[in-house]
């Protein structure tokens, strides 16, 4: 059975989604979502272990040998992404139970879990596949289910947010498709490894250059890189809390992985970074995103919006790593994908618990949080420190790696921008903690008094993971280093 694991990781959620839609029961939906996430996560870990010890794992869909058929190809980079995405789904699941029951009307809850499973399937598919067109198909699966999920938000504004994302996301998907189509036109193949082999002969072709432009603009929309980020803040703020926690930690991260894969493996660094100025543009936009995102986050009065703008800045870190065009940069980007996924998921679960108990996501609701909900407050502090990058947290590991990669490239401006953005993170996380500790609780908000057990579980696991990655960073750092080197090797 183990040789089928690369397909099964994606298949499990794909099979469970229609099952949930047919059973029409919220309880069964939640149970199957949890089981699916757990199954995919367990298989991802097994495959990652297999890749670590035995090299790249390839799976031929339908028994058609690559490059003729669709190939699933797992190396360290996407093995790590698969584990992160399915792991986050598993960690969000306990919190989702109570939060979904609280925020979404009963007849729609089973559809929520079906959409979550489809979204998970799409995200895992993007990561697992070794076929360029398959990336687009799975991107659409994850995006379409995400539009539905965001539209289930608490207020009617969610519909507008979802529609905005739909318009932007469709443009992004179409650009990616045009880019892949152009690649197909010049190489005659869709298999990523095969494209990488044939593309160098067409490096001077205008078609290839156009393909690069289309692919990176399309993926930048999906990553929400400044200035193509307009959809993200409202989508994150209006979506149901469980969706925000899941998507903030996975959707943009998987798009960032796709960017890495296309830049380093499929198109090749010689084209993307040496011949064309994608790297320079990426570094510039990443720097602007880091400063602008953090700056706007400081002045937010809404907890979810604050975290969403902070995500824009954090995406800047990841893109900065990718845009350096070095193996160290790529592995730093991947490390930050892991670190930010855990940390931001934890912070959005905190926001979800505050909404669950107080019914408000204004910053005022945080006043006196330390007394009101000490456990939740502890998670806020730990994940907040992870976001800032305090030593012994996950954020420190990735930011340190990124800083070293920047110094190796002597990118001083970017390095100082990154440190500046981290200092601004101290301010907006500090504002949250200041409110929680020193201000009197807002008595006009009625507290339901109980944090759901599932939410406690999710928060505890994410907070522990934040510290664990910070203290015991070797395994993940080694995987990320191997992944960065592997991405470039595969492109040669």
């Amino acid at each position, binding site marked *: 059975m183990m040789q*089928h694991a690369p*397909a099964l990781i994606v*298949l499990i959620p*794909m*099979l469970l*989604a*229609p*099952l949930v*839609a*047919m059973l029409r029961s919220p309880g069964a939906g939640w149970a199957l979502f949890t089981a699916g996430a757990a199954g995919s996560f367990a298989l991802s870990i097994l495959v990652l272990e297999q890749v670590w010890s035995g090299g790249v794992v390839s*799976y*031929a*869909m*339908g*028994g058609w040998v690559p490059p003729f058929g669709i190939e699933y190809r797992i190396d360290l980079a996407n093995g790590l992404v698969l584990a992160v995405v399915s792991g986050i789904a598993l960690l969000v699941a306990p919190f989702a139970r109570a939060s979904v029951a609280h925020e979404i009307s009963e007849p729609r809850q089973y559809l929520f879990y*079906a959409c979550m499973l489809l979204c998970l399937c799409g995200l895992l598919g993007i990561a697992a596949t070794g076929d360029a067109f398959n990336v687009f198909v799975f991107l659409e699966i994850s995006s379409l289910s995400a539009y539905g999920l965001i539209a289930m938000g608490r207020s009617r504004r969610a519909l507008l947010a979802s529609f905005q994302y739909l318009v932007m996301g469709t443009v992004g998907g179409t650009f990616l498709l045009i880019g892949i189509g152009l690649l197909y036109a010049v190489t005659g193949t869709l298999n990523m490894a095969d494209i990488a082999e044939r593309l160098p002969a067409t490096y001077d072709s205008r078609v290839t250059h156009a393909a690069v432009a289309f692919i990176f603009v399309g993926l930048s929309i999906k990553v929400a890189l400044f200035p193509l980020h307009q959809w993200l803040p409202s989508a994150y703020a209006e979506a149901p809390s469980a969706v925000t926690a899941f998507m903030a930690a996975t959707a943009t991260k998987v798009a960032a992985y796709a960017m890495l894969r296309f830049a380093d493996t499929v198109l090749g660094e010689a084209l993307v970074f040496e011949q064309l100025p994608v790297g320079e543009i990426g570094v510039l936009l990443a720097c602007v995103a880091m400063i602008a995102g953090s700056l706007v986050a400081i002045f937010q009065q809404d907890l979810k919006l604050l975290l969403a703008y902070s995500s824009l800045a954090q995406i800047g870190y990841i893109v900065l790593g990718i845009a350096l065009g070095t193996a160290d940069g790529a592995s730093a980007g991947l490390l930050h994908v892991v670190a930010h996924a855990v940390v931001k998921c934890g912070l959005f679960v905190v926001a979800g618990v505050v909404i669950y108990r107080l019914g408000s996501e204004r910053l005022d609701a945080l006043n006196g949080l330390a007394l009101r909900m000490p456990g939740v407050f502890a998670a806020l502090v730990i994940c907040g420190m992870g976001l800032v990058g305090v030593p012994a947290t996950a954020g420190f590991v990735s930011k340190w790696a990124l800083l070293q990669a920047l110094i190796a490239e002597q990118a001083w401006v970017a390095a100082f921008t990154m440190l500046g953005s981290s200092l601004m993170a101290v301010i907006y996380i500090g504002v949250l903690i200041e409110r929680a500790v020193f201000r009197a609780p807002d008595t006009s908000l009625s507290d339901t008094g109980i944090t759901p057990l599932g939410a406690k579980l999710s928060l505890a696991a994410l907070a522990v993971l934040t510290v664990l990655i910070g203290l015991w960073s070797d395994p993940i750092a080694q995987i990320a280093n191997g992944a960065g080197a592997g991405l470039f090797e595969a492109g040669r």
Partner: protein
Amino acid sequence: MALQHDQVVLRIVTKLLAPLIMVFGLYVQFHGDFGPGGGFQAGVIFASAVILYGLVFGLDAARAVIPPRTLRLLAPLGVLLYAGTGVLTLLLGENFLSYNAIDPAHPAKGQHYGILAVELGVGITVASVMMLLFFAFAGRGKVKA
């Protein structure tokens, strides 16, 4: 929504055409492995018969033909049929969707049956989703979806 009773031509032509459209849909469905066609086109054609019926005789009449409740069961069922075929080949010891495993002695036959099953799944899902979309838009504001 229903047309006036004096629209005789439309009513008669619809009654004549609807079964033909459905048969043509089935032809496209099951002839897809030999000629142009397949589940996607077949599903749309099949659903268009019901949609035409609904346009002429009214939404309630079309709902009586196929209740949305049933459609909401059929749409995921098609996906399950597709994925289930793949799981069957997995259980038979081959890769996902390797139809050869269905009839190892005659791989070509295995491919044939596999494609038929998968395309049927596509057809069922596409037809039910098309009809659900029509019901959802046409019944906007009148009934709960």
